[in-house]
């Protein structure tokens, strides 16, 4: 049972590679849909079965022997968090396949094969309990992601985004591999639990531990697109086809944070207890800078997919902040946030896909007022904006409240301010887009001379553009409903809270992996935050609407004549625009300095 979430998609991919070019399109679609549905079911069953004890599955039957307890094989270490994430991943892949039902009229099964392998790689990353094995799935994710990015490689499309994606992630992966090698050199093991136990026993120097930790997670930080490793993400989104964007933003990026949290808790948390404050401070800096800068970029975009990509960066910053508190309720909040955000973001990307299908563009100014007939889609996009802003009833609001409560218990009240800032800006950006495109408010030209990039995006669909197929809008609607409904039962919320407590208790995994026994301490019942519409929510809502209105009004001539403040703001915006240059060399330079600065922070604060 346990290896199926990886084995089934890989097997179907291999079969499709063999016979797929002979099969009609609908059979391929059906096979892909059934496979991802199957993986959802299996992952849910696994999550359920592991609720009371961690399931450990030894590939090749190489469980540690009774006298040495030393793992020589690779294991899957399945707990409800990992299996639940795998289920969530396959849910989004399922949604992407439904959306692409009337999509990509191309020959061959390449798209389906690549998506299925991508799914398998993400599931493998969620479930794996071995450091090198995680690296392997990480590399497979990169390879499949790059190939999917370039899938729609028509003449009119630039591949620069895919190139930046590939180079940055590969460089990050190599640094991760170096970190794994360093850890292996001293512990003689690759199993996460065994490495964690050994590191804790042998009191290694904290300088060594800090640097090894930074190296091991660097690849995952690049994948998570935190500042200043985030540049590739927006470029990749501008190139990738819509269903691929759904996966990239909805879950792939978040898996980077998940992997970093997993590695921290299992491998390093016991060994580096003296420097836990340093790690906390590091992730506070990483998370808040990512949340703020992502939100600023997001607000400055006119290309809808790119706008959403930057909002993903901002929200990843929020999740990083949740993890950074290093206590169960913070991470539980981040998990709730991840679910809500993934569903809402997937719905919004599908909205972008619908616009592309109907109007042949996703540019805010090109489309101004042209989509009045698509009011229901516009309404759903506005709902998505509310979800992004973390307002009830969306799951993001639970996540946000839980993170804020945890932050105030840890005496970091400023985190709430960062969260509100990110939510107002990202929500307002989407709201502004919707108002301009679906209602026709605001200027038809952009304010600044050196404005946001105006990218021509090719239509991805063929056939009738006069109507929106039910597979498109239906998927969007279901995703939005799910984003509201998932956390309503309080059992889901308290379940996540309980599971996170286990996630942060390495001793349980040690018992399960090395000694094949399960010890389950009683957890205190986690606090769950209420669904009430708080004062803060009201503030966010008002702020968001005001900001969107201001941005719409700002384009008018009168405002421009006023312009001193506006010009100042634009100058700042220009500075940031220059940083996002699209050149891979710049990004690698940022990567280098980012690693150096984060390393310095860790080492100095330890």
């Amino acid at each position, binding site marked *: 049972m346990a290896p199926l979430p990886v084995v089934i998609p890989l097997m179907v991919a291999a079969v499709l590679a063999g016979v797929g070019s002979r099969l009609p399109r609908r059979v391929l679609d059906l096979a892909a849909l059934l496979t991802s549905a199957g993986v959802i079911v299996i992952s849910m069953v696994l999550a359920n079965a592991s609720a009371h004890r961690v399931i450990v599955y030894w590939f090749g039957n190489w469980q540690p022997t009774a006298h040495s307890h030393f793992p020589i094989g690779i294991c899957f270490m399945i707990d409800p968090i990992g299996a639940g994430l795998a289920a969530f991943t396959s849910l989004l892949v399922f949604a992407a396949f439904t959306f692409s039902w009337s999509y990509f009229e191309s020959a061959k099964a390449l798209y389906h094969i690549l998506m299925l392998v991508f799914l398998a790689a993400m599931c493998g990353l969620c479930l794996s309990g071995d450091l090198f094995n995680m690296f392997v799935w990480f590399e497979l994710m990169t390879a499949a992601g790059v190939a999917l990015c370039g899938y729609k490689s028509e*003449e009119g499309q630039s591949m620069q985004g895919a190139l930046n994606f590939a180079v940055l992630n590969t460089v990050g992966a190599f640094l991760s591999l170096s970190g794994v090698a360093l850890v292996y050199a001293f512990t003689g093991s690759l199993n996460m639990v065994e490495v964690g136990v050994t590191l804790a026993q042998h009191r290694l120097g904290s300088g060594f531990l800090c640097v090894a930790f930074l190296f091991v997670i660097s690849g995952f930080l690049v994948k998570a697109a935190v500042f200043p490793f985030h540049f590739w993400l927006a470029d990749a989104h501008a190139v990738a086809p819509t269903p691929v964007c759904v996966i990239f933003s909805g879950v792939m990026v978040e898996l980077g944070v998940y992997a970093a949290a997993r590695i921290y808790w299992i491998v390093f948390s016991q060994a580096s207890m003296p420097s836990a404050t340093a790690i906390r401070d590091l992730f506070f800096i990483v998370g808040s800078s990512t949340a703020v800068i992502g939100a600023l970029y997001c607000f400055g975009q006119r290309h809808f997919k790119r706008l959403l990509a930057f909002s993903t960066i901002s929200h990843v910053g929020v999740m990083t902040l949740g993890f950074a508190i290093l206590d169960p309720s913070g991470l539980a909040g981040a998990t709730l946030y991840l679910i809500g955000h993934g569903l809402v973001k997937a719905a919004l990307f599908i909205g972008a896909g619908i616009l592309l299908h109907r109007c042949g563009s996703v540019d805010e100014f090109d489309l101004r007022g042209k989509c009045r007939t698509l009011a229901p889609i516009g309404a759903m996009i506005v709902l998505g904006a509310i979800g992004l802003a973390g307002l009830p009833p969306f799951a993001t609001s639970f996540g946000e409240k839980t993170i804020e409560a945890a932050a105030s218990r840890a005496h970091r009240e400023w985190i709430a301010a960062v969260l509100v800032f990110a939510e107002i800006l990202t929500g307002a950006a989407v709201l502004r887009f919707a108002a301009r495109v679906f209602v026709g408010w605001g200027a038809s030209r952009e304010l600044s001379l050196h404005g946001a990039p105006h990218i021509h995006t090719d239509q991805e669909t063929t056939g009738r553009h006069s109507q929106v197929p039910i597979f498109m809008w239906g998927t969007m609607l279901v995703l939005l409903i799910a984003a509201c409904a998932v956390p309503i039962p309080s059992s889901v919320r308290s379940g996540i809270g309980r599971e996170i407590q286990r996630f942060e208790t390495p001793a349980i995994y040690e018992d399960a992996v090395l000694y094949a026994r399960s010890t389950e301490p009683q957890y205190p019942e986690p606090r769950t935050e209420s669904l009430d519409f708080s004062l803060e929510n009201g503030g966010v809502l008002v702020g968001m609407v005001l900001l969107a209105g201001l941005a719409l009004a700002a384009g008018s001539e009168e405002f421009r004549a006023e312009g001193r403040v506006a010009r100042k703001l634009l100058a700042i915006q220009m500075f940031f625009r220059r940083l996002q240059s699209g050149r891979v060399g710049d990004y690698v330079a940022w990567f280098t300095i980012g690693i150096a600065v984060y390393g310095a922070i860790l080492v100095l604060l330890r």
Partner: protein
Amino acid sequence: MSHAWRVTVFLAGAAGIAVLFALVCRTLPGPLPVRNRYAEAINSRVYAQRNVTDAVSAVNFDYRGFDTIGEEFILFVSVLGSISLLRITSERTEGLLADAAEPSRDVPASDAISLWVLVMIAPKVLFGIYIVTHGQLTPGGGFQGGVILASAALILYVGESFAVFRKVVSWRLVELAEAAGAGGFLLIGMIAWFWGKPFLTNVLPLGKTHELTSGGTMPLISLATGLEVMAGFVLLLFAFLQETLTVRGEE
């Protein structure tokens, strides 16, 4: 950023990383007694437990076989990705390329060259098969042998012409071989399920040491990997040599 700025930022970062490295070296623990555990565990058991002599292949195809599945699929996906990137979908460019395609290669190769090709290919194929099948005994295995076999196909191209290459090596067949290699590995892993054992368990008879059939599933996995790697590299060559293939369809 201008070039100078970029280099400055990079140099600052590189200097920072250098300091980090220096710090690691200063706080580096001496050799821990535990660091040999994994190596010793494998080295001491591989001969007795699996009847094979090459510990590296044993790790690749048995002890850590699951990693190898991931790696094999990285190859699989990269090859498919390259094909998908190099295919042409615009008719205008396709026409242009068709006009310009292979102008110098239409001259048939002389008999001497054909003979040379045959002379070169046969040992190469043999060598490749040898490497693939002796993976568990001597250095080598599916990965290395697969690349050698793929390079035999390349000689065909160098010595003869792309037309001959296309005639002898069928695109469809190579594609099937790649899928079979990738799926075959998974199937071998599933054999264990019939014995109620976890995925990838080596359940087949282990044979006698130093014989080709020793190692249970290892030689089979080596074969599957060899097939996959060979087909993958031939497909890559195909894709780079002529990219109109997928558009023109099969033969």
